[in-house]
């Protein structure tokens, strides 16, 4: 055993181990650095590329053109349709998940018995463990047909690929954030605040909306931001069920393509290194990275404002 070594050698071992553990900590920084490098290097090449019109024209086109067709002969590079698809799906998922999650979280933290909560919460968290491609399958082959049949009752037609179906499925998928994490925020509000309200004669519902929710608002907001960030970055559900063509539309019943869907589509094809198509996925990717980073940092900010009672 190394313990048999003399004290001076043992102490030098302390330094060796310290260095090793520290360097692994540094490795995590290197990873971020490499991610940024990967994105920046090839995104820059994209914007400098002649097919994009060279810098700064390419950047202007990126934000102003209304079509995204880097793989076609006529190369349009407006990211708007992809942004549209990405945000539309995230919006639909939020529309479903936020109210639903709020009510579930309120129920679990204010009304449910200990046993009920212990039973339900792990299932909510398990939703995060389900492979997203499975959710994609479900969206395409179960939810879409059901919706189609339902909408046809009203004479509305919906295509096989659309934004509504993945949006709904994503809404359930982000419940670990909008329900479970929000519930954690509610649980963090101390009992004495609730008791003060009850003592004044308020019932649980009023207390929840007027005392608990406002007290937990930073944590709740952080949870929502992380959930939306997750929805924005989601890949497989949309790759399977949303569509393969960028489409600037506000109609959720039409096929659309998200940033992530585009990256998958191109990656599945032949990708010669440094070709314009290859570079385009990095341009799309860096945009996605920046947007989700923004949401994540905002979430961190709000998390820091959570009052430690």
């Amino acid at each position, binding site marked *: *055993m190394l*313990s*048999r*070594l003399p*004290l001076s050698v*043992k*102490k030098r071992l302390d330094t060796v181990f310290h260095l090793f553990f520290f360097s692994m900590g540094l490795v995590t920084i290197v990873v971020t650095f490499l991610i940024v490098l990967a994105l920046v290097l090839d995104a820059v090449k994209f914007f400098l590329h002649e097919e994009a019109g060279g810098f700064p024209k390419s950047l202007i086109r990126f934000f102003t053109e209304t079509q995204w067709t880097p793989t076609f002969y006529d190369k349009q590079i407006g990211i708007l349709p992809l942004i549209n698809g990405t945000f539309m799906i995230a919006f639909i998922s939020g529309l479903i998940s936020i109210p639903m999650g709020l009510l579930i979280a309120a129920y679990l933290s204010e009304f449910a018995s200990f046993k009920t909560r212990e039973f339900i919460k792990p299932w909510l968290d398990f939703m995060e463990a389900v492979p997203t491609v499975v959710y994609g399958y479900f969206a395409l082959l179960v939810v879409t047909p059901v919706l189609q049949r339902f909408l046809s009752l009203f004479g509305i037609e919906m295509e096989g690929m659309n934004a509504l179906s993945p949006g709904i499925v994503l809404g359930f998928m982000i419940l670990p954030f909008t329900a479970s994490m929000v519930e954690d925020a509610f649980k963090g509000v101390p009992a004495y605040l609730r008791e003060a309200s009850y003592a004044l004669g308020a019932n649980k519902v009023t207390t929840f909306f007027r005392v608990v929710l406002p007290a937990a608002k930073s944590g709740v907001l952080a949870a929502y931001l992380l959930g939306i960030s997750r929805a924005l970055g989601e890949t497989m559900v949309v790759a399977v069920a949303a569509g393969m063509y960028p489409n600037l539309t506000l109609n959720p019943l039409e096929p659309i393509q998200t940033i992530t869907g585009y990256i998958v589509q191109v990656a599945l094809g032949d990708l010669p290194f440094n070709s314009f198509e290859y570079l385009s996925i990095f341009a799309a990717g860096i945009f996605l990275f920046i947007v989700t980073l923004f949401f994540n940092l905002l979430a961190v900010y709000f998390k820091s404002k959570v009052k430690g009672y």
Partner: protein
Amino acid sequence: MNNIKLDLRKVSVFYGKNQAVKEISFPVYENKVIAIIGPSGCGKTTLLRVLNRMHDLYPDITYTGEAILSPEGINLIDKKVDPLKVRMRIGMVFQKPNPFPKSIFENVAYGLRIRGINNKTELKDRVEEALKASWLWDEVKDRLQDNAYSLSGGQQQRLCIARAIAVEPEVLLFDEPTSALDPISTAKIEELIVELKKKTTILIVTHNMQQAARISDYTAFMYLGELIEFGPTEKIFTKPDQKLTEDYITGRFG
């Protein structure tokens, strides 16, 4: 004539800018039990933990002064002295029993192992010796491989004592060792401490004055970080020099 094993000279401890221990000086006589008493927050545990360099584990705590260990006369709390070397010679028993989640045998053997002792027979003998010396042997001799947490609180504390004495420390520090125990276990450990002083030197912090009166040879009374009085226990408890000491002893404040 009593030999001084550990001589405290003007020991001060600072938590940041706040001085918790103010220039304490008193001798710790060899093979005697020295008790440190005083009301909560007077700094007695802080003082104790300087002596085996526990404070080195935490930032923002600084200390000055000298704690001279005989026979070499080295200053234990000198920054240049390796804390490891100090802890190899000064042992500690903590307030709440804190055995390792290992077997009873391994708990006692651990200190020996890190001193490089690996010989199975030697370990067995020394573990047995330590458990006998802490009056635990008969109760555990048939279940040395059991997890230490299967023991009662009082037994766990005796296990911690066995662990500490297995490595034959020159000074053994006790930090309120019975405050978390029932009266019967407390009594047993008090007797044990008196027996242990034959082999080592004991410094014990206690918030229980009667305990100090029962088992110690000398007592130091601290108040708000200062040493108010130090002397033979009998004198401190019957005819103290300082009024403050008298007030504390008679329970006028606590």
